[in-house]
């Protein structure tokens, strides 16, 4: 823990208010977390708006990137939730872009990672799950409960299978939010710990400075891995959203 004492790896996750605001006993301050959520939305919207402003028939570089993102998400949604799932395209695309841009922005030094806080990711997951529940009951009524009763299971087994299905449904918002949050948290802590090794090794003199090349190389490699993880977690979040929406659309599986 010697390195961790000098370079605190969880200092980067601290939230501090920028514009303090207290209303009725609630702390509604505009914090660095809120600031980076706004930055995320501005970056994502500005990128999508500017890249598609020209609407060229033959897309340029930026326009092809945003077209690729559009095609990617629409294919993902069509494959897992079918034709009727496309009505949820705005939701899934916004979630995907928000998580992706927030993850990638968090990789810049001194930038705050919005998705490394469980309350943010749990908010996103709760939005997805409540959409599934509300839409499922609106479209199918109590037929939505067929989701918990798999077809072709003998009646005796129902007493075992139905509770398992209910528990697995209830744990979805938890696993969806904890996966994203813990991946970002673990990645950023690992990066900080290896950067801390560079600092504490360099303090040891000439031999230490020569040796600190190793953790520095590791930190560079980990940064590359984190770019991959950022993209993969945004993809996983969007894919799982599509699969849960598919349950709301077609509950009897």
């Amino acid at each position: 823990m010697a390195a961790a004492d000098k370079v605190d790896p969880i200092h980067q996750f601290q939230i501090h208010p920028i514009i303090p605001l207290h209303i009725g006993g609630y702390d509604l301050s505009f914090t660095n977390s809120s600031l980076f959520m706004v930055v995320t939305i501005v970056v994502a919207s500005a990128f999508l708006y500017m890249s598609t402003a020209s609407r060229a028939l033959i897309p340029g570089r930026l326009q092809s990137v945003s077209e690729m993102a559009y095609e990617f998400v629409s294919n993902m949604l069509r494959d897992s939730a079918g034709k009727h799932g496309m009505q949820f395209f705005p939701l899934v695309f916004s979630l995907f872009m928000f998580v992706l841009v927030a993850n990638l922005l968090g990789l810049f030094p001194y930038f705050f990672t919005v998705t490394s806080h469980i309350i943010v990711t749990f908010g996103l997951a709760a939005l997805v799950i409540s959409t599934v529940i509300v839409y499922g009951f609106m479209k199918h009524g109590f037929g939505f409960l067929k989701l918990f009763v798999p077809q072709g299971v003998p009646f005796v087994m129902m007493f075992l299978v139905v509770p398992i299905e209910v528990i697995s449904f209830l744990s979805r918002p938890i696993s969806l939010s904890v996966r994203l949050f813990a991946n970002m948290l673990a990645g950023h802590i690992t990066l900080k710990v290896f950067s801390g090794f560079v600092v504490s090794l360099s303090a040891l003199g000439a031999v230490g400075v020569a040796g600190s090349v190793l953790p520095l190389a590791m930190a560079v490699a980990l940064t590359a891995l984190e770019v991959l993880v950022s993209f993969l977690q945004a993809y996983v979040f969007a894919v799982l959203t599509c699969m849960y929406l598919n349950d709301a659309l077609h509950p009897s599986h």
Partner: protein
Amino acid sequence: MEVNAAAAIGAGIACLGMGGAGIGLGNIFGSYLAGALRNPSAADGQFGRLIFGFAVTEALGIFSLLIAFLLVFK
């Protein structure tokens, strides 16, 4: 026993859970690769399921990592 020492030992034990997730992930990607080499034309269509299995399995390893983090940085 001192509480900090016990927490450090507990964090180490909690990380054992990640080994199980590692076995599971190796199994998933190994089976995918074996299947993809037998029938490369069908491999791309199963990529979504591969990532879904990866995500569900990885979540369990992440849960144990989270317990370790909670014990170390409390």
